[in-house]
């Protein structure tokens, strides 16, 4: 492994699902990105654009149809199931619905210890010590150890889930909408917690959310996704200040409309919704809703091209 290679290197990741009628749903169509050590990459886009499919494909749940997922120098797409079991503790996932991510019949302490049991790591005594440490790290009272998830609040369940993912000492977390089902006041607590853990353990993260303000708060870089493709990847501050892809701009305008205290200007988005991923449009996938689309956009698919330092965009006519 070369010292300068990124922590996570994803090349041409492609995920298909069978629609059942012989057609294929292109959930993720040839996406490439990297995540450096200790870096937080935010991933935004509307529901159905393939964000969660990426998260699962990284962990080989299920294995992607094509592409490479190189994490710490190892290509996970070629690793055997047995090998993956050894690798997975390094790359852990946090799910949106923390209540259903925990087994309702399992005590919180046992749920948190589960990764250690699977890894066959440590003696029972050592495991108990690490469970307590993880619970302390995420701010769960010790008393929760013997309790069932149904007794805990939504915020506490999410803390338990985070503790469970941290206990294996991962290098990177994949957070799939980790705060979307939480209340406003609890959401801030969990976001602050993730930020603290990131600093303390130099964790890298792929942070998936449809909430642009939440993503900006935690991310170093942000990737915008539309219908299985990346539109734009840029440093967070730059993307929010000056988006170059028309879709990024439309998303930000929509978010600002719901965020600011006054009614905002009308959207520069052609009304309509995400086309079906079973039958993606030809050319640029966004062209039917794009306010600046031209003829070329409906025929030729734009490639991701670098237009500034660390700023890539897939558009024939960037803003």
């Amino acid at each position: 492994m070369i010292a300068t290679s990124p922590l996570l290197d994803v090349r041409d990741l492609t995920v298909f699902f069978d629609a059942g009628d012989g057609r294929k749903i292109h959930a993720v169509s040839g996406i490439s990105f990297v995540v450096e050590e200790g870096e937080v990459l935010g991933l935004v886009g509307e529901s159905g654009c393939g964000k969660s499919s990426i998260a699962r494909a990284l962990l080989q749940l299920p294995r992607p149809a094509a592409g490479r997922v190189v994490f710490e120098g190892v290509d996970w797409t070629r690793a055997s199931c047995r090998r993956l079991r050894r690798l997975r503790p390094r790359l852990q996932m946090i799910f949106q619905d923390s209540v259903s991510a925990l087994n309702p019949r399992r005590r919180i302490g046992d749920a948190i210890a589960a990764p250690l049991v699977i890894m066959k790591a440590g003696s029972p005594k050592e495991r108990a010590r690490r469970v307590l440490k993880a619970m302390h790290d995420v701010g769960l009272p010790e008393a929760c150890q013997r309790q069932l998830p149904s007794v805990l609040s939504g915020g506490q369940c999410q803390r338990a889930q985070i503790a469970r993912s941290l206990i294996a000492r991962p290098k990177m977390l994949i957070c799939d909408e980790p705060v979307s089902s939480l209340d406003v006041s609890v959401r801030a607590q969990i976001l602050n917690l993730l930020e603290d853990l990131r600093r303390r353990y130099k964790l890298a993260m792929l942070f998936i959310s449809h909430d642009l303000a939440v993503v900006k708060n935690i991310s170093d870089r942000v990737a915008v996704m539309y219908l299985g493709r990346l539109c734009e990847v840029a440093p967070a501050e730059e993307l929010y200040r000056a988006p170059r892809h028309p879709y990024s701009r439309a998303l930000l305008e929509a978010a600002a409309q719901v965020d600011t205290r006054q009614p905002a200007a009308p959207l520069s988005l052609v009304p309509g919704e995400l086309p079906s991923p079973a039958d993606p449009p030809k050319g640029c996938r966004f062209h039917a809703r794009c306010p600046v689309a031209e003829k070329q956009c409906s025929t030729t698919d734009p490639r991701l091209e670098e237009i500034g330092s660390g700023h890539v965009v897939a558009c024939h006519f960037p803003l």
Partner: protein
Amino acid sequence: MTASFPNTAPPILAVENLRTTFRTERGPLTAVDGVTFSLGEGRALGVVGESGCGKSVLCRTLLGLLPPTARVDPAARVRFYGKDLLGGGASALRRLRGREISMILQNPMSSLNPVMTVGAQAAEPLRVHTGMSRKRAWKRAVSLLAAVGIPRAEERMKQYPHHFSGGMRQRVAIAMALACGPRLLLADEPTTALDVTVQAEILDLLAVQRRTRRMALILVSHDLGVVAGRTDEVAVMYAGKIVEHAPTPALFANPRMPYSRALLESIPVLDNAPHTRLRAIGGSPPDGLELPYGCRFAPRCSRVQPRCLQDEPGLDFEGAAPHGFACWNPFPLLSAGRQGRNGPSEWRRT
């Protein structure tokens, strides 16, 4: 001491001391506890608060859509154009629901009937409430669907809800709610299940429909941003009570009750730089089974004083000011000039 929001428009809805409790295995759970407000004709009221604060139960109580385990305190009064909503019985309510008052629910997936065509559902309220013929109701429903922005409405009338996306389903639900020209629309988290681009579209649609119809609106949301640009006044609820009720600009510019302010501060905003530390509120809201003594927010409040732990503050409107809050130690009132010019940034900096 407890007064209600002074209204200039004649009130169409007057709620007094509304109290709803649920029978549970662990004892009575108080979901709405002494809520008083009135709503003028054509006004939009935002009701915000976290889950479990009683905002949805409040809506359901007004429409009599409660499960059998619920009990509404008989001392409560709810008047709609002077008519008593609580005492009139189920049949009186049925005459009003869908016609004078209608409601939009959070999840259009579950509020539409999956085995009935969209057209039949959109025409149903017209047939039931106005006795229109099948044919006329169908025609009218087509124009309603078109009015809420459904393209090719005629064709889509024959389709089923699963052919529609989430945003389109919510448009159908709105068309149904507006079918009989209600005077009051209750929208319970109408955009929570939708994507951000669709969310803005639906909120704008509601705003336009409200203005053109001079219809009053109660917009319930946990998201302060959703109510910000689209309501005239906002009521903040905490543990079953209204803790602050003010004109929308005043509430955002100068929240007086510490909970309202904490709620505003805990939200990540687009203007924040990456890795900004959020001001979280410690702890979690009390459950309706064991409410704390005194002010219900006191255990989590940064400005708590001994009095807060003993006496419960009432929703107090200072003089004739339209800004009411339930707090013994409120944040100071900013002068009018400072409030107006800089808005929320003024107190954010403090």
